[in-house]
């Protein structure tokens, strides 16, 4: 085994040991008598940890691996498109999070499906909504999680020179272990460690790139290859019009505000945390991480020609960085993937063990002595299920299903999660909105050529209209009925 391969193993073992240690420490937040301890970190997240876990979860491995590849192929427009996730997360934190947090605190909601059920009046209708929201969350996030496990498994395999399946087993085992131990607290604290690594990795890469070349030469080389790289005349790959790229902003805002594995973090903040402090941290971290796609432009100008644009980041690391730094940055990219995968596992497990349990069994109780055991079993079971799905699912489907999963979930949840925080519809409206969002976005992504931004946004619009329209239409007869009585 070569020296740098040994170094990679040492780095991995040290990182995993720290994460498991964090899981052990965070388990102090967990108790048998309060499910919020496991599901919401006991509502104890401070401004920095809260911001870090939001940014780490939002910037997945895509930002480090996929986005530089798109920038290599399509040019600077991807730098702008990827950047929109940063202001979108900040706007969601500054102008939406506190509303949702206060309502959830008042109702004692521990998960997003539970929030949906409670905000629509609870009771049997609320339980129905909670169950449907949980089922949609489980189906769509499992698919997304499987694609993340696959991605982290592939990268770990090339990093450590081992089989992909072995690598995926190692990576997911550690996630299962600390998530089972400490719940959302463990996920948030490990995310904080990981996002610091990701930001450090981004800064190291920027220092290497900007100190090694002259900026004017960089621009001249890109223009010599294709003037569209820096001054695109279309919005490709986001759409035919230049303005298509701006659609990423509303998409990313809804991604941050509505998706259960993102917005559940708003519920986990300590009640006295001021969101303007969180916003500052989100803006700084987002600003740093949004620089990563520049690697694609650097590789296009100065790197070897690539057959596969997706290999822009691995080839950059191999060509321009010292092997020791290459290993360290690869660890940080693995962090980016793991920080998204652990959040999905935690959300899917909570939807199964908490929401489905409460929705299906009328007599099931909050904070029962067995709830913690059930929650932990769900983490282990669903983590292993994700691993098995990854091993047997056709590889070509995984990345596509990942896109389908997040976009469709966003379209399904906009009415009952986002609109309901400001304007309350009823159970029928919420149910119809979830189903219309699910089938519209899913149908558009599967059956048409619409892009990954446009399909979910149209689904979200249809879902929103249905939420308000159906709620108003089904509310009126009831009011008339009450008056006549």
């Amino acid at each position, binding site marked *: 085994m070569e020296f740098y391969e040994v170094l990679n193993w040492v780095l991995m073992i040290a990182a995993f040991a720290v994460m498991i240690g964090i899981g052990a420490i965070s388990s102090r937040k967990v108790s048998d008598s309060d499910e919020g301890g496991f599901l919401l970190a006991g509502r104890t997240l401070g401004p920095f940890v809260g911001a870090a876990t939001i940014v780490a979860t939002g910037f997945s491995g895509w930002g480090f691996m996929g986005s530089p590849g798109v920038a290599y192929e399509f040019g*600077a427009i991807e730098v702008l498109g990827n950047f929109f996730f940063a*202001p979108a997360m900040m706007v969601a934190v500054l102008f939406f999070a506190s509303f949702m947090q206060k309502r959830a605190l008042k109702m004692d909601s521990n998960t997003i499906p539970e929030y949906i059920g409670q905000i629509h009046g609870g009771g049997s209708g609320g339980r129905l909504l909670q169950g449907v929201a949980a089922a949609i969350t489980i189906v769509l996030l499992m698919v997304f999680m499987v694609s993340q496990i696959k991605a982290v498994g592939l990268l770990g395999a090339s990093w450590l020179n081992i089989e992909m399946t072995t690598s995926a087993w190692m990576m997911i085992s550690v996630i299962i272990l600390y998530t089972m131990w400490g719940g959302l607290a463990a996920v948030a604290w490990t995310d904080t460690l990981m996002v610091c690594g990701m930001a450090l990795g981004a800064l190291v890469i920027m220092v290497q790139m900007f100190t090694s070349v002259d*900026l004017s030469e960089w621009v001249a080389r890109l223009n010599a290859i294709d003037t569209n790289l820096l001054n695109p005349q279309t919005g490709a790959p986001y759409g035919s019009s230049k303005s298509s790229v701006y659609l990423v902003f509303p998409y990313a805002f809804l991604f941050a505000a509505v998706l259960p594995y993102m917005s559940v973090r708003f519920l986990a903040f300590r009640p006295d945390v001021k969101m*303007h*402090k969180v*916003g*500052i941290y989100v*803006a*700084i971290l987002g*600003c740093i991480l949004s620089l990563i796609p520049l690697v694609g432009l650097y590789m296009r100008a100065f790197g070897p020609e690539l057959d596969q644009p997706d290999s822009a980041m691995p080839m950059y690391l191999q060509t321009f960085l010292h092997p020791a730094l290459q290993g360290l940055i690869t660890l940080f990219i693995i962090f980016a993937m793991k920080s998204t995968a652990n959040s999905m596992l935690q959300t899917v497990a909570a939807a199964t063990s908490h929401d489905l349990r409460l929705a299906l069994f009328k007599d099931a109780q909050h904070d029962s002595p067995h709830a913690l055991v059930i929650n932990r079993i769900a983490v282990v079971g669903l983590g292993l299920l994700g691993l098995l799905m990854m091993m047997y699912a056709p590889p070509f489907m995984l990345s596509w299903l990942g896109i389908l999963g997040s976009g469709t979930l966003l379209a399904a949840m906009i009415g009952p999660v986002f609109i309901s925080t400001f304007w309350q519809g009823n159970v029928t409206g919420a149910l119809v909105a979830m189903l219309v969002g699910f089938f519209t976005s899913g149908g558009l992504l599967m059956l048409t050529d619409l892009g990954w931004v446009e399909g979910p946004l149209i689904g979200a619009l249809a879902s929103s209209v249905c939420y308000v329209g159906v709620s108003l239409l089904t509310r009126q007869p009831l009011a008339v009925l009450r008056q006549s009585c």
Partner: protein
Amino acid sequence: MNSWVLDLYVQLNVAMLLLAIGRYWISSRNNNSGVEE
């Protein structure tokens, strides 16, 4: 930078940071003067 996309990227980055700082400053001032957010 001779690139409308990268110029916009830089401007939006600055705008994002200014918005975050501005929101922080307004909230801190309101808190100090006892105004409930």
